């Protein structure tokens, strides 16, 4: 199991935002963490990343908790935030080198892996520029390049398609599928259900901070007796059509 969350309760302060969340991700799986704004998706992700301390419950990545071995735990993750977070003083190449040093990748290997990714996202001519001067979509591509060159066991992608142009979305989907085929897993948070339906192997539906359903689309349809229903329809049925305001 790449990720195992057991009975996680937590949030930003003493008041919990997510309650008793459990989730497993196996090797080579793309899992869609879906829910409306404020449902608790980002809070769950922040707990997995170790940015928040759980009130109760446990999170294991490749069998390790963050308190047991923080470095090993983090080495198995790569995170792509919803809003690009970049070093204003570093060029694109220097971002790549920083990522490589952080993940213990040799310089030549890193530049070779990055070269391919830069080509995919059409950034190869901008390697010596400051990414902070790029457009939002291009900044997001820089985040993707840095994450994908690390080749960890689990990618955590928060709203992956936000700000990307159609070609960028297409390239990202190809990459995600390629990584899955290579045995790596992806947890993708999104509320764009039509896209999630097409590319995710499984869905974890979170509503008002609680995990209300988990399974393949087929399993969800069967459990709700909604044959041929879209993910949107399944989601509305499960959540009762109400939006969450957990945060």
């Amino acid at each position, binding site marked *: 199991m790449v990720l195992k969350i057991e009975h996680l309760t937590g949030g930003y302060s003493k008041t919990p935002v997510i309650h008793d969340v459990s989730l497993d991700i196996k090797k080579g799986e793309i899992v869609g963490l879906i829910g409306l704004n404020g449902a608790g998706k980002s809070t769950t992700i922040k707990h997995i990343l170790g940015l928040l301390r759980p009130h109760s419950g446990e999170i294991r990545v490749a069998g390790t908790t963050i308190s047991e071995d923080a470095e090993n735990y*983090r080495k198995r993750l790569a995170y792509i935030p919803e809003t690009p977070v970049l070093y204003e003083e*570093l060029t694109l190449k220097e971002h790549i080198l*920083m990522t490589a040093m952080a993940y213990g990748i040799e310089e030549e290997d890193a530049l070779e892996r990055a070269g391919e990714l830069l080509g995919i996202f059409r950034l190869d001519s901008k390697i010596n520029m400051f990414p902070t001067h790029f457009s939002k979509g291009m900044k997001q591509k820089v985040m993707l390049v840095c994450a994908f060159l690390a080749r960890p066991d689990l990618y955590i992608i928060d709203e992956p398609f936000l700000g990307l142009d159609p070609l960028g979305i297409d390239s990202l989907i190809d990459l995600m599928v390629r990584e899955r085929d290579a045995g790596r897993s992806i947890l993708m948070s999104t509320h764009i259900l039509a896209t999630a339906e097409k590319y995710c192997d499984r869905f974890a539906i979170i509503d008002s901070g609680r995990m209300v359903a988990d399974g393949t689309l087929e399993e969800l349809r069967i459990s709700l007796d909604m044959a041929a229903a879209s993910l949107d329809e399944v989601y509305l049925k499960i959540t009762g059509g109400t939006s969450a305001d957990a945060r």
Partner: protein
Amino acid sequence: MPDNLFRPRVNEDIRRRSYYGKFIFNSHFLIFLTIAGGVFIYSLLGILQTLEPSVWLDLIASAVVALFLLPGYRSLLKPADGIFLLPYETHMGTYLKNAGRYSLMLGISKAVTAAVIALLLLTVGHGAIGIMLFLLLALIHYTVNFHVRKRVINTGISISLMTVILFVMDVLSLILVLQHPVWLILSLVFLLAADRYVKGREHPAFDWNAYIEHEEVQLNRYYRNVSMFTNVNHIDKQFKRRKYLDPLLWKPAGMSFGKEKMYEFLFYRTFARDHDLPMIILRLIILFGIVMVWMGNLYVSIVTGLFGIYVIVLQMSQIYSAQAYLLWPKVWPVDRSFIQKSYVTFSHKAVFAVTLVFGIIFAIVHPGFAYIAFVFPLWGYLTNRVFSRAVYKKEQELSD
């Protein structure tokens, strides 16, 4: 509504100034100011006794005062005002008047200090009436300049260009009035013309964006000035590419290419590409170097050098703070202690280079006591060690 808005905004600004004021005017700085101020006045009075009346002396007095006759306008407006206060545009009169009064008050202390220094200089060769006229004209310029600079924001005229024009006009007017009182009339005509010219180019409507942007620039400038003495969290950091420095920036290679050296790699770039920091440090070295050379006193040179290093070490620590709180060091599989270790390595090297400059200046000014210069690197090392620890401690407390 806008009338009720001014009081909390001005209180917020006063709180901000008193908060940073406590850090800037700490006991060390006050001791330094007292010593430096005392030596400055003592040496100035000594120089005045030997000076003869001259137009150059008038020029210096006029330029010193003119530098501080350009009060900036602080509207205290915020970006959201451009949306939420639009319907109240016609009711902004009282708010803007109050903001104007507050802005005038903010610049007055520096103008008065400059006037006192000028007053001392003008005692050489000028009578009471001449000095009174000079001060009266300075007061008129201070007020009119303020209104002109405030109006310029609402025109297409370059603020920097207008500031240069006003400064030149101030220097000329002040020096001319010292030569003959009749020049006062010409000076007033100049001022009136500048005011009419800018008024004629004002946009018919209030340019919210321009005023909000101007306020942001002013606030950022204030933070930058404060950051010369203490850490400022709110500062809007900007970086310059400075491609020409790339070959000089150290990069780990071979076995060093890894997590142990990654933050040092980052710190070199943060420092070299920071929009202001290298220039601030250069300015501080020049400023303290000038004081050391000008005073020429052994003890003053030592105190000035030590204080200069202290201020520069304070400056350097903002690099660490800027990196420690970012997202990536919390997500990357790298122990946070590497940030601290790398900062210590980087900052000791940088501070050593700075102390070497101070040591050289000291050795040139006091060749007979050149051996004392060794205290500068030692002081730099110790202060950097203490400040680094204080920054980690603060970071630990915040992360807990």
